[in-house]
């Protein structure tokens, strides 16, 4: 069952002189209920912007330019007794609810989205280590979140739930009466996870959940996220630049570059059947601990500026496989299997299929072989184009 359908979403940041930064540009993907979906990319590729835009947490100059964020759930006021959207709401053309009961989060007002945050979708912020308020007890901060979103809960019950949640993530319940500075780094991270789970959401957005943590603690937090998912059946949207972390925890993922999704599909397919020049380049450029005597090759050039970007594929300036067509427009997401089997370029109808935004996805064999060679990626080849 699809929990979240992001449809052709574009997010911009306004800059002083009438231009705009195209941080997220015509992006579509689906997240299934109970799965872990990863958004991976380098800094500035739009992954955090994309995640924040889903629940209206953009900076003040950021706005959704176009597109929809269909979420399987709706506001409490629009629900019937079974938690489904009322027929009257679906029929009302002024309310952004579709025939199948999914609500367009992008069309909600700021006061409406507050009923969705935490209750339906909770965020584990990027610097979770600093997300706790230093002058309130940790337990009280979780209780506050519960009471804000479920005001009918008695105080004592909310308090008990906060302690249960802490215990659930491996913190002794009596530590609820401690302040954040009395917690170690790993415990703060766990407490923030507990807080995100306070209202039993259907979806967690985890923005770089382990980036500031040491590797042994990171290992434990990843285990904790997996355990929580198993127990509560929550979907997790993970955002990270760390490809090896993503490979380990994600069921499916999307590789972003310059505000676009370049390749998406099952994690296994992305790593074993890599079908986009950018992903291939990325794979060449990071070392793994298991391999001796590797040869790393970096992608030449630097990521593009997204301020009023030019037409054409976002990656073309750094891509050794760029052809004339790449300058005309950014390629759509082609179905990789279709391209391999029939040699035809067909836009993927299913968001869940293995997709790649590349005009040469029908020549994958050649591209994959070439991409492993160092000379393919040297600066000269690309400048001559």
């Amino acid at each position, binding site marked *: 069952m699809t929990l979240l359908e992001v449809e052709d979403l574009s997010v911009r940041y306004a800059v002083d002189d009438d231009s705009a930064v195209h941080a997220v540009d015509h992006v579509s993907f689906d997240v299934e209920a109970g799965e872990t979906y990863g958004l991976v990319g380098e*800094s500035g590729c739009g992954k955090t912007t994309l995640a924040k835009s889903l629940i209206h947490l953009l900076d003040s100059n950021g706005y959704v330019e176009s597109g929809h964020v269909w979420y399987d759930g709706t506001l409490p006021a629009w629900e019937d007794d079974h938690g489904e959207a009322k027929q009257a709401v679906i029929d009302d053309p002024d309310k952004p609810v579709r025939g199948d009961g999914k609500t367009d989060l992008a069309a909600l007002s700021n006061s409406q989205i507050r009923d969705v945050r935490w209750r339906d979708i909770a965020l584990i912020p990027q610097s979770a280590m600093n997300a706790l308020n230093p002058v309130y007890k940790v337990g009280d901060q979780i209780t506050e979140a519960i009471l804000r979103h479920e005001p009918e809960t008695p105080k004592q019950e909310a308090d008990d739930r906060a302690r249960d949640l802490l215990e659930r993530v491996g913190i002794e319940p009596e530590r609820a009466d401690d302040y954040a500075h009395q917690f170690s780094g*790993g415990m703060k991270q766990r407490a923030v996870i507990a807080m995100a789970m306070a209202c039993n959401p259907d979806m967690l957005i985890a923005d770089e959940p382990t980036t500031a943590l040491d590797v*042994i603690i*990171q*290992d*434990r937090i990843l285990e904790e996220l997996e355990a929580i998912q198993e127990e509560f059946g929550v979907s997790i949207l993970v955002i990270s630049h760390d490809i090896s972390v993503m490979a380990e925890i994600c069921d499916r993922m999307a590789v972003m570059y310059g505000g676009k999704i370049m390749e998406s599909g099952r994690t296994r397919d992305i790593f074993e059947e890599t079908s986009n020049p950018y992903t291939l380049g990325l794979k060449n450029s*990071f*070392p793994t601990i298991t391999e001796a005597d*590797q040869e790393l090759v970096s992608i030449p050039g*630097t990521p593009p500026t997204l301020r009023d970007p030019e037409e054409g594929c976002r990656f073309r300036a750094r891509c050794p496989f760029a052809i004339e067509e790449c300058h005309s427009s950014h390629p759509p997401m082609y179905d990789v299997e279709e391209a391999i089997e029939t040699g035809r370029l067909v836009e993927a109808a299913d968001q869940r299929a293995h997709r790649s935004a590349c005009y040469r996805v029908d020549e994958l064999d050649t591209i994959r072989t070439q991409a492993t060679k160092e000379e393919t990626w040297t600066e000269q080849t690309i400048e001559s184009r």
Partner: protein
Amino acid sequence: MDGTDDREPLVEVENVRKLFDLSQGIVDTVLGREPQPVRAVDGVSFEIQRGDTIGIAGESGCGKTTLGKLLVKLYEPTEGTIRFDGREITDLTNEEEREFRQRVQMIFQDPFESLNPRMTVFNTVEEPLKINDMADSYDERRRRVKEVLEDVGLGPADVYLDAFPDELSGGERQRVAIARALVVDPDFVVCDEPVSMLDVSIRAGVLNLMKRLQDEYGLTYLFISHDLSLIRYMCGRAGIMYLGNMIEKGPTDDIITDPKHPYSEALFDAVPDVALGDERRRANATGEVPSPRNPPSGCRYHPRCAHVIPPDDWTGSQDAFRRALQFKLKVERSDIGPETVDGSDTSDPTRELVEHGLTLDVPEEYRSETEMETGGSRVDLTAVDLPSDAREALFDAAEALNGGDRDAALGALDGVVTTVCEREYPEPRTAGSRSVECHLYGDDATSATDSGVAAAPTED
């Protein structure tokens, strides 16, 4: 690092300590409390051969950056000696110090912070030449700067000379920082996390550049990183640090494929890897890194160690001893008492407390069945192979705790739950191609028969 060949090492570090005193608050002064220094580097010895790249790995706060700064003389060691090219660096004449400052350079972590935003690339790279009186005329300096910029891949240099740092990308800035270090033709460069601030797609370029320049300039590197895969890519030899100690050092490939120290083992198990998929083992270490201000006695790692050594007369399993030690540590830290259990077991509160105290804070795959069922708050006593005297001691201690007497609890455990790892610091010993600071290896290893890390000191 172990001086396996006859060449004279370029850098020799001998038993170096660096303690940082923290300024005391007025309350401490009034109460006459002794200042408690942070033991950032605590007795580290190693050598670096000419032309080698030595990696220093470890988690944050382990002292790796302090060690790097000691080597370039940004800090003075509290104790111990550092020799560079045969001369002790704490004891240099002014003339020798000038030479040292030219021959030893450092590349810092963050190129967004380490470059002066008001200096052009040319000024930045030229400055070390001026300070070291290395080129007489402007024209000569300009020629030399251009040459180095082209060496670090910033060519044609004319484009970059007048640029300010904010006009450059992260990768270009780090190349400028490298050029600034290399322009004086140094022998030894300390690189502190040189690529951690850079995007993945451009990291490899900087790393490969550093490798190429090592050959061209005849450099010796000390490469500091928390990222073990980078250490493996860059360094022939490596040292793993934990709380100021270098607990294992030797050839990088050997350390990674067959770690000897239980901490190294946990560290490498914790690294996620694209290739391994779901089959990865998790790190078998309890808890988190303790504060370097008050580090554990003996082996700094013993409170977290999976292979901590039971006393000679211990008849139970090693796992049982590890659990009993956790109980004792919890009592020492005042982390256990009647309030830490929910009291659901009213028939036997003492047993409940013992079963709670024996739990291990480790990943699920290392937990017992009851720990899994209770979310890690209890372990079934019958599943723990404890000798009868230890069992008695634990019950006595739990009873004392329930009576509110922590000292009596510690007294009950004293002499029963005790380990060499807690009493003595393990001096470095040889294990295979490595030098390891762990009691499992060498003479002390006799009692470690049922431990997971095989006590096999010789293999090569």
